């Protein structure tokens, strides 16, 4: 069976949420919803996807890692895009969505192996 088949439901939901919210953010939503969707797809979902690759069980540390990894990864991606002169916030949304999905795939492989 493939890793995706054996992946746990939260990981699949996380990956799907990243795809859906990235698309919605790119299409555009009314202001408060756009803010929520963008914060989720740019910071919270990538942070969560990356944090769950670490074997952290502590709630407080896990929360901290979600925030720190989300913010740090977005900073790294945005800065690199500016230096490469390819920045647009839409490109950042797509990049963070891709990072989230890749992290979910890596997590799914971990779950399948365990």
């Amino acid at each position, binding site marked *: 069976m493939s890793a995706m088949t054996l992946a746990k439901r939260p990981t699949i939901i996380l990956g799907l949420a990243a795809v859906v919210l990235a698309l919605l953010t790119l299409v555009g939503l009314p202001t408060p919803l756009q803010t929520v969707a963008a914060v989720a797809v740019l910071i919270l979902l990538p942070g969560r996807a990356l944090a769950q690759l670490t074997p952290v069980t502590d709630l407080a540390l896990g929360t901290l890692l979600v925030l720190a990894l989300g913010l740090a990864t977005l900073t*790294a991606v945005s*800065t690199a895009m500016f230096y490469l002169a390819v920045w647009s916030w839409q490109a950042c949304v797509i990049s963070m969505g891709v990072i989230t999905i890749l992290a979910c795939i890596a997590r799914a492989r971990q779950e399948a192996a365990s």
Partner: protein
Amino acid sequence: MTSTLDTPSRMDLRWKPRDLWCALAGAVSLALVVWAASTVALPVTSDLGLVAALPFPFWAGVLILNAAFFVALRGDTEGPASRPVMIWLVAVLVLVLFGTAAFVTDVPRGEVAFRHLGIANALSGMQQIDPNIDAYFNWPGFFALLATVLGATGLDPVTLALWAPVLNVSLWLVAIAVLTGYLTRDPRRRWLVLWLFCLGNWQDQDYLSPQAFGFFLYLVVLAMVLGPLAAKPATFHGFRPAGLGQWWRERTPAEPRTGFRLAALVVTLLLIPVITASHQLTPFMLLLVITVLTLSGRVWPGRLPLIAGLVLVLWLLYPASTYLAGHPLLENSGLQIAAEANVVDRVNGTAGHLLVVQLRVGLTVLLWALAALGAVLEWRKRRLDLRIVLLAATPLLLFPAQAYGGEMLIRVSLFALPFVALLASSVLLPGDGSVRPSARAVGALVLTCFLLAVLTVTGRFGNAQYDVFTRSEIDAVAAAEQLAPPGSSVISAAHPTPWRSQSYLEHRYRTMDDLCREDLSPQTCGPIVYNYARHNPGGAHLIFMRSTEASVVLQGDNSPGEFTELEEWISMQNGVQLAFSNTDARVYRVAP
């Protein structure tokens, strides 16, 4: 071993009546504070700042909140109140101390947040980085983040800047809660550290800035270093090289899971370059602290300081090389220069302003004295954790390295504050965690922390006469920037001026006190400003505002009358026309 020790309080979902009363008291205090702050009339006219304008119910709210917190902290024999109640009370304190200005006005305080919005706006427009513009474009990480977040979320930039202090302090507190979990098992002390950190945080570095962002990531790296990357030191064999080598080799990882250590190392290696790309000072502070901790044998990956140092050097050599070519790192170094810039130059101004400055110093000294006493008490009980002392003291080493625009001492005290609070908490809660504080001790703690809150509000909002802007002043600055053609100069009387948020690169921005070297007398400054404005091919727009006048007067740079005389002198010159005016500001156009 390296999980954040025990849960900070009971996970019992059954709330006791006392917990409910404490939560309700928190809500009441928040309501009082919000209502009281919203009644403050602008502009603030006292040189003591906001503290003189806040009505009695504000202080009643602060007192009730402290009482509720310490009753909840006292809890019962099982420990403090339930976690949601403690979190709620800390959240209310954050809103009370760091959201006060947002309850008073819908305009962010100070100049710098506006400038930072302008840099993010300029980056969005250019879509690339030009390091020749200024220092910010040599450390652009935070601004790249800000540009992306503002672009994607559609958030109003000014609203984000307004609430940034609450957001930043909340992030800091999450990190401090985690890292103090690695340093003490006492749940009461862990909550008290968060409380004391807020009460000691008068430094006002939590606005929308690379410093606030860098400090958050700094705390996260420390959480990694104190937690999954920590080492258990071996028995010390003396200072001989062989003994030191044996001591170094015999240290063992505190975290037994290799995978966890590796993951924590990867996280740290991501955060270090992001910190380095985002802020000038924080990477140096981080390098210093990691090095000291590693040399104490308390960090497992021994090469971490080398990696952090290498990343920093590479950043300085390449992305930041443009700025450093004209600004050597140790340009303003030395203890005397640092002392003059950080202390002597700040102890000037009106009687009220001097009192505010003295109270800021007093609050810092009080916390440091409590921390020193706490360290002695812990040492006598043979439970002093050396890491806490190192983390509190190491930032001081950076003080003589750079004047940092007169702000180094403020930054040093901020970086040390979480650990100063931790040491101080052992004086305020001398028990070992199993001992419930007496009712009398709780009463004393309430009064002590209420006093600290008064000092913090005084210190933090002590410049409100000039850093809390009125809507009229914002309108005047917007009018000046709109009227000024691209390439022309916009000249304000002094800092802070809430400008550059929309047109960072379009105009030349100057202040009269910079042009005139702080001598604003009409005889000296008038001709300098007038000639500077006339010689600009695009002309200039001059802004005179209530807040800038208050700024120079309050800080002792000028007498009240001189500012008016300067404006009158300039307004009578050829080619000078009043272009905009309202109750708090005038904008003059100077033809080229």
